[in-house]
C-alpha cells in the first residue's frame, strides 16, 4: 500500500513543485533579449529602460519616456543642460540678452541639417517656437506663454522677445518645449521624428526596443557609437537578468534597489549612484476635507519617519529632502527640520483638528517605489491613528485619469521627475494637488520676473512656505541608480534633465 502511495504523492509533488518553481523562475526571467554587443564590440550598446513611450510625439503626449529617448539624441534645442544642470550652447553657438532681459538674440550654428536633408536656419526657430503655442497639446507648453514674438534676423540669427522678463525661460528652452523641428518634418511625429541630433530613429519594435543609428551628416561632434538600442522592460527583475546574461549593457534606472547586491561585488559591473530631479511626493488633495485642514496635513508629515521609510522601502538609496527642491538646484535648502518625525505632535495636531479615526484613500501609481513606500506610509500613519486604504492604480492611464485629471483621491504617491517643478505643482491651483496659496504664487512670479539676483531668495522662500504649509509630504529624492558593464563611459552621475543623453556614451575596447 505504501509504495503506490509514495509513488503517487512523489510523482504529483514533483510535478506541482516543478510548476511552482517554473512560475517563480518565469516571473523573474529575462524575456530573451535580442540585444547586442559582446565585450569586444564598441560600435553599439544597448540600454535598458522601464517605461516604453506610447508614441514618439512629445508635442501631444505627456510623460517623460518620450523626451528621455528623443531629446538631445534625436531632437536638439538651441541650448541644452550639461550633466551638472548648467545651460550650455547647442544649436545656438551663443546668445545675447538685452538689458531689460526681454530680448534674446540667438546666434545659430550654420552647418546643422535635419535628417530629412533640410538645412537648419532661423526660419525653423520661428516655426518651432510659434508651433508650441498653436499646436502643442501638453500642459508643459505654458512655458512658452511668456514669449511675445519670434523673429528671423538673418539665416543664422533669431530674436525672441518676451512679454516680461523671465529667469526660467532659457532653462525651459533646454527641455522638450525648446526642441527644434523641421518645417517639412512634422507629418508623422508619432512614428517618424525628424531632428538635427546626432542620432536618427532606425527602427522601433513596439513592446521591445527602439534602435537609434548615428546620423551620417551630423553637424557637431559625432557620437562614438554607431548604434544604440533602447530596450524596454516591464519588470525590474527582468531587466537585471538581461544585464547579467549580456542582453543589455546598461540598466538606465534600477527599480529594484535591493537587487543591487548582485552587481556591487562583481568587477564585471559598475554601479553609478547619484541624485535625480525626481521628488517622490506623498501628495495631498488640498482642496478637500479633511486635508484642506493644515493641521491634518502637518500631522501626517510629523507621523512619517522618512529615514526609516527610505531604508525599508528603497534599500536606503535616496535622500531625505523635506521640500520640493533637489540639491542640484541653486535654491536648494535642507528643509527636513520643518516637520520632523514626531508622532506625539502628530496625535496632538489631529486632536486639535477634531479628527479621530481618520480614514484616507491612498491612491497610488502601481509602480515599485510607490507600492513599497505606500505600505510604510500606511503602517506609520496607523501608529498615530490614521487608517490609509492603499489602492494601486495602473500607471500611466488609470492613475493619470483618476488622480491627475479628476483629482479623485485623498493622498497619492508619485515621483515628480520634471526638473524645477516647484511652480508647476504648487503655483497652479488647478493642478491635481489643488493647492491655492496666493503668497506662494506671488513669490513664484517674483522669482521669475524679478531681477535675477532675487530669484534664489524668492524660490527658497516659496519652497519653505510650501513645506511649512504641508501642501504635500516629500518622501525622498529618487536616486539615480545606473548599473553598467565595466568600461562603459559617459553615463551621468546625476540625472538633472529629462533626456537620457546617449551622445557621449562609449565603451572602451575590452
Amino acid at each position, binding site marked *: 500500500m505504501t509504495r503506490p502511495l509514495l509513488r503517487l504523492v512523489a510523482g504529483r509533488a514533483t510535478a506541482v513543485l516543478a510548476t511552482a518553481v517554473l512560475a517563480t523562475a518565469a516571473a523573474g526571467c529575462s524575456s530573451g533579449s535580442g540585444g547586442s554587443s559582446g565585450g569586444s564590440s564598441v560600435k553599439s550598446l544597448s540600454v535598458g529602460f522601464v517605461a516604453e513611450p506610447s508614441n514618439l510625439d512629445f508635442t501631444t503626449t505627456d510623460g517623460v519616456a518620450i523626451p528621455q529617448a528623443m531629446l538631445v539624441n534625436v531632437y536638439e534645442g538651441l541650448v541644452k543642460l550639461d550633466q551638472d544642470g548648467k545651460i550650455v550652447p547647442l544649436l545656438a553657438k551663443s546668445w545675447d540678452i538685452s538689458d531689460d532681459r526681454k530680448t534674446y538674440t540667438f546666434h545659430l550654428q550654420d552647418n546643422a541639417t535635419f535628417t530629412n536633408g533640410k538645412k537648419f536656419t532661423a526660419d525653423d526657430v520661428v516655426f518651432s517656437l510659434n508651433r508650441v503655442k498653436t499646436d502643442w497639446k501638453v500642459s508643459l507648453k505654458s512655458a512658452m506663454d511668456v514669449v511675445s514674438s519670434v523673429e528671423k534676423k538673418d539665416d543664422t540669427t533669431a530674436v525672441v522677445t518676451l512679454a516680461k522678463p523671465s529667469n526660467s525661460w532659457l532653462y525651459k528652452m533646454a527641455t522638450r518645449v525648446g526642441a527644434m523641428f523641421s518645417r517639412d518634418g512634422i507629418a508623422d511625429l508619432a512614428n517618424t521624428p525628424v531632428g538635427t541630433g546626432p542620432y536618427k530613429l532606425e527602427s522601433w519594435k513596439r513592446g521591445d526596443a527602439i534602435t537609434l543609428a548615428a546620423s551620417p551628416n551630423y553637424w557637431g561632434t559625432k557620437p562614438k557609437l554607431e548604434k544604440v538600442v533602447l530596450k524596454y522592460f516591464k519588470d525590474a527583475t527582468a531587466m537585471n537578468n538581461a544585464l547579467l546574461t549580456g542582453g543589455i549593457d546598461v540598466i538606465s534606472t534600477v527599480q529594484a534597489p*535591493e*537587487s543591487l547586491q548582485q552587481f556591487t561585488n562583481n568587477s564585471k559591473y559598475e554601479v553609478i549612484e547619484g541624485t535625480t530631479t525626481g521628488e517622490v511626493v506623498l501628495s495631498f488633495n488640498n482642496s478637500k476635507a479633511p486635508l484642506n485642514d493644515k493641521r491634518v496635513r502637518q500631522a501626517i508629515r510629523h507621523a512619517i519617519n522618512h529615514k*526609516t521609510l527610505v531604508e525599508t522601502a528603497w*534599500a536606503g538609496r535616496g535622500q531625505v529632502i523635506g521640500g520640493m527642491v533637489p540639491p542640484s538646484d541653486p535654491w536648494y535648502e535642507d528643509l527636513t527640520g520643518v516637520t520632523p518625525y514626531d508622532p506625539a505632535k502628530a496625535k496632538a495636531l489631529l486632536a486639535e483638528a477634531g479628527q479621530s479615526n481618520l480614514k484616507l484613500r491612498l491612491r497610488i501609481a502601481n509602480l515599485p517605489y510607490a507600492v513599497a513606500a505606500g505600505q510604510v506610509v500606511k503602517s506609520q500613519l496607523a501608529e498615530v491613528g490614521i487608517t490609509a486604504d492603499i489602492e494601486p492604480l495602473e500607471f500611466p492611464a488609470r492613475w493619470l485619469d483618476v488622480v491627475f485629471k479628476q483629482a479623485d483621491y485623498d493622498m497619492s504617491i508619485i515621483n515628480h521627475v520634471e526638473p524645477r517643478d516647484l511652480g508647476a505643482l504648487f503655483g497652479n491651483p488647478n493642478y491635481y494637488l489643488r493647492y491655492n496659496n496666493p503668497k506662494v504664487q506671488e513669490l513664484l512670479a517674483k522669482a521669475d520676473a524679478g531681477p535675477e539676483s532675487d530669484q534664489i531668495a524668492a524660490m527658497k522662500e516659496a519652497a519653505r512656505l510650501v513645506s511649512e504649509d504641508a501642501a504635500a509630504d516629500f518622501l525622498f529624492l529618487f536616486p539615480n541608480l545606473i548599473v553598467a558593464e565595466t568600461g562603459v563611459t559617459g553615463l551621468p552621475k546625476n540625472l538633472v534633465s529629462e533626456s537620457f543623453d546617449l551622445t557621449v556614451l562609449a565603451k572602451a575596447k575590452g
Partner: protein
Amino acid sequence: MSAPAARRRVRRLNASMVVGGALVGLVVLAALVSFVWTPHDPVHVDPAHRLAPAFGGDYLLGTDKFGRDVLSRLMVGARTTLYVGIVAVGIAAVLGTPLGMLAGMVGGWSGELVMRANDLLFAFPALLLAIMLGAVFGASALTAMVAIGVATIPAFARVARGQTLSVMHTDYVLAARSAGRSRLAIALRHVLPNIASILIVQASVSFAIAILAEAALSFLGFGTRPPTPSWGRMLQESQELLFSTPRLAFWPGLAIALAVLGFNLLGDGLRDWLDPKLREGR
C-alpha cells in the same frame, strides 16, 4: 476488471484523499487560526527587524524587507488563497456546469448558441476582463475573483458538455428517457453524478490557476490591496531579493505548491470515490 485490481484501486483512492485532505486541512486551519491569532501583526512595518533570519529569535520563518513576519503573512495569505480559489472556482462551476450540460443535452441550435457564446468568452483575456470589471466596480479582491471565475466558466462548460454528450448515449439514460423521465430529472439523477468526477479534477486545476491569476492581478493593482498578504503578492515582492534572501520566495512558493498538490490529490481521490463504476468494485 479483476478483483485484485479493483482492490488496489480502492486503497489508492483512500491514500490520495487522506494526503490531499490533510494538506487542504492544513491550509484551512492556518486560515482559520489567523482570524484569532498570528505570531505577529502581519502588516506592521518594523524597520528594526527587517530581513531577520528564519529559525532564530522571534520570527520562525524570518521577516521580509519591511520587517513583517513571514509566518504571520503566510497564515493570513492562506485566507486570501482559499477565498480566491473558492469564489472563483465556485462561480465557474456553478455557472459553467449547467451551461455545458444544457448544451450537451439539448443540442441543436440552442446548444450551439450556448457553446459559441462560450467560445466568445473563452477568447476574451481573463486579465482584460478583470481590469474592465475593476474599472467599472472599483478594484478589489472581490472583483478580481469574480473576473477570474467568469473567465473560467468556459473551461467548465466545455468539459461538462463533452462528458454530457457521452453520458447521453449510455443505456441507462436512454432507458430513463424512454421511461418518460423529465430532462431535469435525468440531468440531476444520471448526468451530473456521472460527470462529477471530471468536474472535480477540473476544479482542482482551476483552483491552482486562480491562485496564480490572483498574484498577477495584485501586481497590476486589480487584486488584493497591499499590504494585505496573499501568497502571490509575497512571491512577487520577493523577486528583487531572490539572490540575497531566497527564502522569501521559498516559503510562499512552498505554500502554493502544497496547496495545489493538496487540492489536486483531494480532487483525484474524490473522483475515484464518486465514480459509480469504481464504487461497484468495492
